[in-house]
């Protein structure tokens, strides 16, 4: 990804702490530097604080101590700063608006930024087509399968051409086959668009398949346990999962997670 550096946002965390009242320490001094255009998986036990970290990076929550710096110069100290359209967030649930068609759901971010109707619909249709939803534009979310809903959710995130895409266990509720397809789709999207991706998951194999770099977090409060580079080929297909190098990467991540279990 030589050219990715041109436009993906870089993320720098400096000694980030987050304590929820009264005294639940969710994040305990995390410092990280994520290069622009990288694909990083955040791995860790459920409820370890990795989602909190993602929310802080998105500017939806603020650290009690430390800083989250997005981009080379954009400094987002807290709420209230101009949230740039450069950041997109995909949730665990598709979180679609049931009263809107697929097209109008995907167009929502542009609508909230007052783009004219014709422009935003045209762009939404283009993104939805890229994600294989060209036939579903006028359908409503309740007429879609779980995998299709997630793809609409992805389309909504991609419509602004984000430079930083944050995903919080987006495919966790889907069946294995749909999940694999969406993993491949996401990997392809990353290769064809210039964006940094942070992907929260608790699936070791998903993290290995998707990411260039996996960061393993401890149980709450979240601290970095392992920072592991995944130097697998750029083009990844399902066959890769049977590869011995794939298994070796998985084993390293598994070991870090297991050690974390034993310590507790």
């Amino acid at each position: 990804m030589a050219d990715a550096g041109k436009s993906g946002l870089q993320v720098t965390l400096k000694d980030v702490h987050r304590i929820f009242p009264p005294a639940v320490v969710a994040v305990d001094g995390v410092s990280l530097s994520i290069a622009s255009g990288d694909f990083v998986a955040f791995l860790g036990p459920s409820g370890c604080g990795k989602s909190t970290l993602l929310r802080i990076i998105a500017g939806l929550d603020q650290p009690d101590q430390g800083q989250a710096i997005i981009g080379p110069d954009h400094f987002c100290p807290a709420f209230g700063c101009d949230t740039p359209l450069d950041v997109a967030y995909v949730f665990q649930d598709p979180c679609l608006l049931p009263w809107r068609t697929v097209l109008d759901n995907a167009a929502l971010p542009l609508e909230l930024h007052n783009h004219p109707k014709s422009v935003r619909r045209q762009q939404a249709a283009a993104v939805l087509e890229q994600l294989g939803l060209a036939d579903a534009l006028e359908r409503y979310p309740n007429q879609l399968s779980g995998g299709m809903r997630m793809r609409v959710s992805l389309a909504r995130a991609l419509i602004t051409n984000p430079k930083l895409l944050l995903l919080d266990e987006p495919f966790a509720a889907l069946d294995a086959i749909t999940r694999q397809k969406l993993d491949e789709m996401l990997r392809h999207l990353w290769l064809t668009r210039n964006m940094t991706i942070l992907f929260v998951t608790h699936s070791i194999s998903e993290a290995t398949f998707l990411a260039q770099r996996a960061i393993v977090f401890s149980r709450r409060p979240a601290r970095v346990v392992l920072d592991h580079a995944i130097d697998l080929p750029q083009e990844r297909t399902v066959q890769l999962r049977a590869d011995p190098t794939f298994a070796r990467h998985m084993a390293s991540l598994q070991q870090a997670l297991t050690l974390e279990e034993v310590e507790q």
Partner: protein
Amino acid sequence: MSTSHQQLPAGHQTPDHHQHPAGSANPRLTNGLTSSAAAMPARWRGISPIVLPPVIVLVVISALLEILVRSGVLWAYIVPTPSSVLEQMGTSSRLWIAAGQTGLSAIIALALSTVVGIGAAIALASARWVERAFYPYAVFFQTVPIIAIAPLLVVYLGYGMQTIVASAFIVSIFPVLANTLAGLRSTNPSLVDLFQLYGAGGWKTLWKLRFPSAVPNIMTGLKVAAGLAVIGAIVGEFIGGSTGLGDEIVAAIPRQRPDIVYAAITLAALLGLALFALINLISWLLLRHWHAWQQ
């Protein structure tokens, strides 16, 4: 197996042939049964076991009452014969006009409750302190019986439709207010985050997210409010009006006309049902795309 079959003498095949027509007669028999059942439209076969039992109960009880009153066991000035109630409903245009007046008051009150109730809920949801300061009074207000307030309404508003509408409005606003407020408070927090991420302000989030998310709750509130509005209108007519079903009931009792009273009661119930059905229809139209969704 097949070889042993081939070795069977020809004589053994005749019972087989006899059995085959008998076997094929069975499907014919079941076909005959299903075709006679299919003569009834498919939907009726599903509905009749639901509709038939209560209709049978109604017919039997009505017939019993009719016999008891006609034979003099029950006095006709206490309990009317079902046939005389039906006759009143069929012949008295007065009663239908009265039902129309009550219905109009109830619908106006329901419309007011919808607008004011939703408006008040939005105001209460705008800030925590507003809700804390005012909501207890809304709850308290709701517990005061309408029959106790109605004479006061006459003092303030005089006799007439305005008092009837006010009475129906007072009893029907609370379910709309409470349900709308609950709906506005229960917006999916992830979606609130999403709107925040894209820089949507309070009004945009309210109009494009929180209010539409609350529509199922609003419809639930309106279903309760519809029945209450009819009750409130009739109470208003008892005390502060000279029109409507309430007035017909008040006038019929001293004249010892239980047939009119029962006919008015039946019409009032039908009115409540009709309003409820109307709200259900609107609800279905608005929420068609939500079904099988509730996540």
